[in-house]
């Protein structure tokens, strides 16, 4: 009896010290379903300051379609960016900005509050870098690992809604 308890303790210990990957997932296998009426161009993980971007789903997803399953090491809480070709709902109000070098307008839309429009449009032209035109939304998602299914849809207010299963 004494040895049985010791044995069980050792099993528990080794399971939580070097074998925990047998029951915890260290990768996320993500599939995205597009329930909006526009095309999703891709899904990226964005750094908190917005300067670094790592693509996750690179396929274009037509309305009503599903993406392929892509496995990546993202387990935890991350900022996700979903890019669209256009957006038929409301866009965020414009914040006027001027490029210092060429005085060409750079349109950047500010972050939305709950219930406000949450789709950004970024339009950068002639600022010395490549011209960028992008319609996208950003949200923070908690990936638990394993097989996860993300449904992107449009709610009745015309904003993007996410559902992670």
């Amino acid at each position, binding site marked *: 009896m004494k040895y049985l308890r010791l044995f069980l303790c050792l099993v528990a*210990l080794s399971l*939580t*010290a*070097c074998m*925990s*990957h047998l029951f*915890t997932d*260290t*990768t996320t296998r993500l599939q995205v379903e597009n329930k909006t009426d526009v095309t999703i161009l891709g899904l990226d*993980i*964005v*750094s*908190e*300051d917005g300067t*670094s971007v*790592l693509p996750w789903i690179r396929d274009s997803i037509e309305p009503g379609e599903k993406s392929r399953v892509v496995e*990546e*090491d*993202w*387990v*935890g*809480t*991350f*900022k996700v960016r979903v890019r669209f070709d256009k957006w038929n709902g409301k866009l965020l109000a414009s914040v006027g900005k001027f490029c210092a070098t060429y005085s060409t307008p750079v349109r950047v839309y500010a972050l939305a509050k709950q219930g406000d429009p949450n789709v950004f449009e970024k339009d950068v032209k002639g600022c010395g870098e490549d011209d960028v035109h992008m319609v996208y939304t950003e949200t*923070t998602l908690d990936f638990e*690992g394993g097989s996860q299914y993300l449904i992107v849809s449009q709610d009745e207010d015309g904003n993007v809604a996410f559902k992670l299963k």
Partner: protein
Amino acid sequence: MKNGLNKIFLLLVMVAGVAFADPIPTEALTQGGLVMRDRQLRDIGLVMRGGRGGFVDIGYTYTPSSEQLQLQSKYGVHDGFAFRHHYGIFGSWVLDSTSHFGFLTWFDRAGWDSQDFFFFPHYGDFAHISSALTWGFSYTNTEYDVTAALGLQHQNLEKAGWRVYPDENDSLLFYWAHARYKMVGLQASFYRSTFQTIRLSLDLESRSLYGGAGSGFKTYLPNLNATIYRRKTNGDDDNFIRLNWEQNLYKQTLYADVTFDFPDDGFRSAILKYYPDPARMIGFEASCLRRHEFAGSKDLLWGGAIDLLFFRLGYNSAFDYENMFHTKGTLVAEFRFQIGAVDGKFFGRGAAKPAPMETTKNSIDLKKLMKARAEQNSASPKYDAQGNKVIEAKGIRYEKTDATQGGH
């Protein structure tokens, strides 16, 4: 019922320990090699106080949950495990009656990975795994009370995920030397022709373990060490000095350990350590560390640790913060074993006195002692308060007595 309550309490503590944990920053991981190398040289310095006998220290940290020590990268918070596996071994041979030749090796492997492991890491995309190995030879002459040691130090980067860590050099070769004359020690480590650290130690406290006094004012003298660290800030030399003062407060069981950084940062940490036995097999500590992240009292990290012979449990302790990548807000458990031996006596790291021996030697002594005491008793008779001679009966003896003499 009571047992059940204890279990619930333990569970609550564990949940709280995980729930309030702060993720560890990637910057702390990239500095890991430097921290490991410095701690190994400090450990070697402690063992070289005697420079003979042997020392073993082996352990690994145990963090059971993948949400306990998450990683904070620029992309967010990653689930995973911070780990630290280490050993340190020193052994010496007696060459002649005064000379001792020793070999030492210290090894640390530490970092963060998305899976936990004993030997074979998963090498996830955000893993950072590096190791440091210090080895060398020592020579001690007990007649002059001198020790000289020198060797090499290897810092090896096994894996650093390119997405979140800056480029680091791999497989760096450092070399180090340590010299001690009585209570003064000098230690230096170099990379090519530039120094990394230079440490001057004055271990003035008298230690009965190494033939010093066991009590008295000499045991209350301080242990001081000053280390010059090479540091670069924006490409310019920005060296700093770390001053460390360990002070015996009560009978070599209660110590204060204070650290200051010069010239700029000032107070670094203060630790109050209590060892129920001066051999330091078991220890309790309370620590306060200044993190240089905020202003005022918010910057101070208060914590403590319980150090049993095979197990150490710390919460926000200064040691864990510095050696486990700025871990805070969680319980850090470590399975470990460390013991040193000099002249057949055992002690823990940095101890002043050997552990009391309670094995076979004592039982032989006990017999001799009893015999000696018995002889002593028969030789010198005892006297009671009135000055009458008292003879103690040994064994029971029945004697026939005469009724006329008043006997019963």
